[in-house]
């Protein structure tokens, strides 16, 4: 059993025998790792560092009907083990995206998840229609949770009814897999998860950023251009894991887990909590090849632990 040839065979069998592919509410992914919206641009930005073909999916920057300028600077601040951002959904608008950015992504054998946001239900509906008609869009991730934009008093992500309404409108306008991205800034993530599930979501993405802020004690003013920002990175991981754990047990939808995933261990923690797939955000800034390292690391963990199908790990901490 310990002869070198056997070992070799073992190792090869391992690397081939391990199934990493998952199905996220109708979106087939060759492995469970995607990028977190807003941290990976539209793909080409990281192409020098990442083999885009190896990603389970590429999730692009939040897209809106009209172009958005975004917020004043500073737009980013460091906090202990985290960052605050207030980008404010700067993006060139959905038509520009379809015309200029999507064609590039079609060169890759990797599904594209388009993250969408809007100010009104009509916005969501229209963005959905335009993207559903575009070639190369594999799924929609509906951002009902961005803390960085003022929406005339309507806080979609934190109001259950409103969140469900957004999902219903998107659902009516697309047959693409529909991932509802939830805000963690809520009292009861399970309630809101349940509502968006009823409203027709195929999967849940959690979590978006926690609303936070930083004050510069020298100027005695808020540090960020937009005063408040969204907290991401390792600091928020315990909150994210908890929400995935709660939602996965309460709602029968696959979950795209995210929030502070820096390495394979962190990714596995989310999978054990109940995430079918994971998204890597802030980590890209620290290590541009983070997604690649995470895919390799998950594979290694499975081999080390004799797990042949990643799906067996999903929710294994409570199943």
């Amino acid at each position, binding site marked *: 059993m310990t002869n070198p040839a056997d070992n070799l065979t073992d190792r090869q069998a391992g690397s081939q025998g391990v199934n990493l592919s998952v199905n996220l509410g109708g979106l087939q992914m060759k492995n469970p790792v995607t990028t977190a919206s807003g941290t990976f641009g539209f793909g080409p*930005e990281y192409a020098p560092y990442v083999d885009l073909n190896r990603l389970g999916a590429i999730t692009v920057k939040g897209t809106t009907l009209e172009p958005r300028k975004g917020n004043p600077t500073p737009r*980013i601040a*460091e906090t202990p083990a985290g960052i605050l951002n207030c980008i404010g959904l*700067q993006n060139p608008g959905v038509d520009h995206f379809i015309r200029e950015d999507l064609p590039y992504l079609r060169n890759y054998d990797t599904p594209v998840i388009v993250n969408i946001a809007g100010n009104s239900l009509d916005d969501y509906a229209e963005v959905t229609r335009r993207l559903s008609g575009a070639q190369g869009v594999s799924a929609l991730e509906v951002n009902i949770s961005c803390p960085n934009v003022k929406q005339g008093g309507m806080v979609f992500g934190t109001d259950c009814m409103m969140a469900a309404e957004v999902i219903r409108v998107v659902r009516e306008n697309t047959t693409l897999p529909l991932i509802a991205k939830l805000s963690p800034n809520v009292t009861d993530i399970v309630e809101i998860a349940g509502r968006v599930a009823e409203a027709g979501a195929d999967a849940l993405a959690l979590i978006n950023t926690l609303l936070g802020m930083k004050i510069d004690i020298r100027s005695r003013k808020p540090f960020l251009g937009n005063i408040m920002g969204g907290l991401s990175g390792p600091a928020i991981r315990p909150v994210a894991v908890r929400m995935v754990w709660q939602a996965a047990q309460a709602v029968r939808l696959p979950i795209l887990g995210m929030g502070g995933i820096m390495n394979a261990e962190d990714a596995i923690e989310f999978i054990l909590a109940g995430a079918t797939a994971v998204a890597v955000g802030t980590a890209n*800034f620290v290590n541009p090849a983070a997604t690649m390292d995470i895919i390799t690391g998950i594979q290694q963990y499975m081999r080390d632990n004799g797990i042949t199908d990643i799906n067996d790990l999903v929710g294994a901490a409570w199943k």
Partner: protein
Amino acid sequence: MSFSGLGEVVMNTKVGPEHFLMRVYVPQLTKLAKPGRFVHIRCSSGMDPLLRRPISLHGIDYGKGTISLLYQVVGTGTRMLAEMSPGDGIDLMGPLGNGFTIPDGINKALVVGGGIGVAPLFPLVQSLKHYGIEQTVLLGARSAAFVIGREQLESLGVKVKIATDDGSFGYQGFVTGLAEDVIPAAKPDYFFACGPYPMLKGLISLTKGFGLSGQVSLEEYMGCGVGACLACVCKNRTGGGTEQPASAGGFEYKKVCTDGPVFEASEVILDD
């Protein structure tokens, strides 16, 4: 193209009150280097600081495969850099951004550096010299001790004038004041500048008065360094950015990391 990985620190010396000069052997990156571009450095292997730190290319030795970095210790990240020793591995991405471009037909350049803004100007000065362009270099600093690199620049045979806030060396006052004195006599036909925003602001309005165009290198807090996160934007007058349509309010946000850090002076809008 861009490199990401480990270089090897070959030198790291104190060269000023808070300033260090680091040389890094990293041939794959060096071969892509260009004045005005920068590297994005992971200062800690842990989480403090979490983000990388952008540092300009200060020297490029294509032959030896090394780049050098001139940096000022201002916080946690740069302090960690200062603690590195020859032989240590250093995690860097780059070169990133668009550097200076030397326009055709210029003959006399004014090069202005404020504080640590002098760092990226060295390879530029060398390029200008290489192209046989006459140049006057103005350096602004807090005080005499904070004037970095005068001798090295002079040894390249370029004219260097100094302004210090406290008058402890050269012209007393801001480097923009010195520029105002120098321009009429030196009659430059183009300028390049890097330094704090108030200096750049002053310089842009001054040069505009003289009908002088030029390029400025900007700084902003960065996340990714590769144009993906949209953290590092600055206001820009043009509407012709590659990814962004012309926008209404008189400006659009451009990315310092990939659209810059060097911009046409006439394009940038610097708020207070």
